[in-house]
C-alpha cells in the first residue's frame, strides 16, 4: 500500500511524492545540467523563464476552469485577439496606450463571459462552448488585423524587455500572475467555490453557492489571464500577430494536468501549474540545447505528458 510507505517516509520525501511534478522537474534539471554544460548558465535559465511565461500565464487561467471541472480551449485564440485589439486601438484607432490595454483586457474578459454564459445558461458542455470561441476569437483577430501583424505601441512593447540588466519582464509578469492565481484559489470565496463546484456541483448548489455566477467569474478570469498572456507574447515580438499563440491552449492544459490537477475537477494548484509550465519549457529548451530535431521534440514532449500524468494516476490509485 503506497499510503503506508508514505506514512513512514521523511516529511521531505513525502512532500516530493505528493508533488510528483516537482520531483520530475528536479530530475529533469539535474539530467540536463549533466548532459549540457550550457543548461545551468544564468542566461539560459532566464531564457527558459521567458519561454515558460506565456504558457504559464495561460495555464494559470486554465487552472481556474479545470478546477471547476471545465475546460477552456479558447485561451490561445483569445490571447491573439486581445493582443490584436490592443495594437489596433493604439495604432489604427489612435487611442492612448493605457486605454488600449484596458480595452484589450476587457475583450479577454468578454470572451470568457460569453463562454461561461453558453455553459451556465445555454447548458453547452465547456468543450463545445470554448471550441466555438476558439474559432470565433481567432477569426475576429484575423478580421481586425486583415491578416497581417500590427506593431505594438512602444510603451507596451517594453514589457517584452528586461528590468535592469538581466531580469526579463515576462518572468516578473508570470510570477505576479501566479501569485494572483494562488491567492484567488486559496483565499477568496470564488476560489473555494471553484473547488466545491468541481468536486460536486450539486452539493455546492445545495450549500448556497450560486454556481452560474461563479462560473461567469471563473471563465472571465481565464479570459483576463489569456489577454495578459497575449500582451506579453506580442510585446516580446514587438508586434501583435493574428496567428500568434495558436495551439497554446493545449500546452496550457498540459501544464495544468502535469501540475497535478484533475480534469474531472476539484483538484489543482497554482504552484503545480507553475511547475508544469516550467517542465514543458525546460524540456523544450533542453532538447534544443541537445540539438534534437523539432520533429522529435514533439514526440518526446507528448510522451512526457503521458508519463507525468500516468505516474500521478498510479500513485493515487492505491489510496482509493
Amino acid at each position: 500500500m503506497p499510503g503506508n510507505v508514505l506514512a513512514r517516509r521523511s516529511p521531505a520525501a513525502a512532500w516530493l511524492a505528493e508533488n510528483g511534478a516537482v520531483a520530475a522537474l528536479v530530475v529533469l534539471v539535474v539530467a540536463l545540467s549533466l548532459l549540457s554544460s550550457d543548461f545551468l548558465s544564468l542566461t539560459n535559465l532566464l531564457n527558459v523563464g521567458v519561454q515558460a511565461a506565456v504558457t504559464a500565464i495561460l495555464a494559470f487561467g486554465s487552472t481556474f476552469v479545470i478546477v471547476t471541472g471545465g475546460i477552456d480551449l479558447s485561451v490561445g485564440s483569445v490571447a491573439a485577439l486581445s493582443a490584436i485589439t490592443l495594437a489596433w486601438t493604439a495604432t489604427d484607432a489612435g487611442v492612448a496606450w493605457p486605454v488600449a490595454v484596458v480595452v484589450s483586457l476587457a475583450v479577454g474578459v468578454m470572451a470568457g463571459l460569453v463562454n461561461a454564459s453558453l455553459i451556465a445558461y445555454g447548458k453547452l458542455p465547456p468543450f463545445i462552448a470554448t471550441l466555438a470561441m476558439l474559432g470565433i476569437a481567432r477569426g475576429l483577430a484575423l478580421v481586425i488585423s486583415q491578416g497581417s501583424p500590427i506593431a505594438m505601441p512602444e510603451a507596451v512593447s517594453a514589457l517584452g524587455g528586461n528590468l535592469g540588466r538581466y531580469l526579463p519582464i515576462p518572468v516578473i509578469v508570470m510570477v505576479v500572475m501566479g501569485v494572483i492565481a494562488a491567492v484567488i484559489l486559496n483565499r477568496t470565496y470564488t476560489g473555494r467555490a471553484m473547488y466545491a463546484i468541481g468536486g460536486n456541483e450539486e452539493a455546492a448548489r445545495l450549500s448556497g453557492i450560486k454556481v452560474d455566477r461563479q462560473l461567469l467569474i471563473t471563465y472571465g478570469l481565464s479570459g483576463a489571464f489569456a489577454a495578459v498572456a497575449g500582451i506579453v507574447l506580442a510585446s516580446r515580438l514587438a508586434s501583435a500577430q493574428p496567428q500568434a499563440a495558436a495551439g497554446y491552449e493545449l500546452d496550457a492544459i498540459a501544464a495544468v494536468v502535469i501540475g497535478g490537477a484533475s480534469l474531472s475537477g476539484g483538484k489543482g494548484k497554482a504552484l503545480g501549474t507553475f511547475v508544469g509550465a516550467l517542465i514543458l519549457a525546460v524540456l523544450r529548451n533542453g532538447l534544443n540545447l541537445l540539438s534534437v530535431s523539432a520533429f522529435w521534440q514533439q514526440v518526446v514532449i507528448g510522451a512526457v505528458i503521458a508519463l507525468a500524468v500516468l505516474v500521478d494516476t498510479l500513485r493515487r490509485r492505491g489510496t482509493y
Partner: protein
Amino acid sequence: MSEPILRAEGLRKGFPGVQALDGVDLSLCPGEVHVLLGENGAGKSTLIKMLSGAYRPDEGRVLMDGRQVDIRTAGDAQRLGISTIYQEFNLVPELSVAENLSLGRPPRRFGLIDKGAMVRQARELLARVEVDVDPRTPVARLGIARMQMVEIAKALALNARVLIMDEPTAVLTTSEVDKLFVLVRQLRDEGVAVAFITHHLEEIAAIGDRVTVLRDGRSVAEVPADTAQDELVRLMVGRPIDQQFPRRPAELGEPLLKVTGLSRRGAFDDVSFEVRAGEVVGISGLVGAGRTEVARAVFGADRYDSGEVTVRGRRLPPHDVHAAMEAGLGLVPEDRKGQGLVLTADIGENLGLVTLRDATRAGFVDRKGQRTAATKVADQLAIRMTGLNQEVRTLSGGNQQKVVIGKWLVADAHVLILDEPTRGIDVGAKVEIYQLVNELTDSGRAVLMISSDLPEILGMSDRILVMARGRLVGELAAGEATQDDVMALAVTEVEGSRAR
C-alpha cells in the same frame, strides 16, 4: 452448525494515520445470517472490502471451504462466489436500470448486446426484490431507496454463495425492509452465507443468527443474535445507553416555516403544513411518497408549479436556494455522496461550505475562523478523523453523514430540514444528534425531519405528518401514535390524484 464457507483470520489493514483493522476473525456459514455490528469507523466496511477484493489486507488470511484464497480484484471475489452490496452505491447514474443490472456481462446475440433480453432479465430481477420501476429508467432518476433496491437486485444476479450487505436497510422504509428480509431468509434457507451490516438494533434479532461485534478495528465478541439489545450496545460502545430517543419538547413559538398548497405535477399535490419555533415535525411515508421532493422544493433546490413557502414571515422565491438560506433555511439532503459532500475536498472545507459566504470579507475568506468553527462542530459530533484536513472520501460512512449535518450546525440555520439525518449513524452517535436537535429547539429553532426509521419518527417528533402518493394524508400527535397508526396512513390510496 455447519462448516464455514468463508473464514477470515487475523485481518489487519492500515491507512495513513489510522489502523482501520487490527486483528479481525470472522466465519460465515451456509444457511446463516451473520450480523456485523460496530460504531462508525469501527472497521466494518473495511473488513468486507477485503473480502470483496476492493482492498488487500496488510496481514491475515482468508479461507474459502478451508483453502486459503487470494482475493485481489472484484473479479476474483465474483469467481469465488462472493457478491457484495457496498455502503456507497456503485451504479452508473446515466445508464438505465437494466444496463446497470447487466453491467459487465450483458446478454449478447450475434456479438451484439441483446437489449430485449437485457430488459427481460432486469424485469425478473426487479420482480424478485419487488420494486416497481421500469428497467429503462435512468438510475439518476430513482430516489435513493430505489437505487438501493437496484443494488440488491444486482447482487442477486450473481447467484453467489456468500452475500455481503453493507447497511442495505439504511435508506429503506419498513415495508421495503420487510421485503428484503423475506428475500434474505429465502437465500439463507437455500444455503447462502450472508453477512449483514446494520445500525438498526431491532433488525438484528429479526434477521440475524449470529453477531460479530467490532470495536476499534478488533473483533471483540461473537454472540447469538437474540442477545439483549442493551448488551449489544454495551459490547459495541463500551458503555450502556439509557435512552435511545431523548426528545425533550421545547416551548412552542411562532410558526417559522409555512408551506401552503405546494404542488408539482407528478411529484406532490397541495401540500400544506407549518413548523413552529421549538417544534420537531416528522414526515413519514413510503418510498416514493414524495417526501424528499417536497423538502427539496421547499428549500428551493427544485421548482414547483404552485403554492407558497414562507420562512420567518418572508415569502421565498421559488427555485432559489440562496434566498432560502438567507431566510434561515437549511437542508441536510438524503444522498450524502451525490448532494451533500464534496468528496475531493477535506473535512474542514466541507464543514465550512455553507458559511463560506458569511466568512468572506471583501472577497477574501477568513480561513482561520472557518477552521475554528469546523473544529468545534467536529468535536461536538465526535467525528472520527485524523484531522480536519483528512479527505472526506476516506471517512467511514457514518462519519461522512456527520459532516453533512455538521455543515448546517456551523451555519446555524433557523429552520433545519433533515432528510434521513441518522442514515448510517451508530446508536451512540444517534443519541448525540438527537441531543443536538433538542438544543436546536430549546433555542427556538424549528426542525422538519424526514425519516424512514419509524422508531426515530415516533421517538423524536412532536407532531407527525404522513405522506402517501404525493399528498399529506394525515397528522398524528407523537405522544399517542404507534407504528401501526403511521403505517396504516402511509399505505392510503389517494383518490383522484396519483403521483408517478
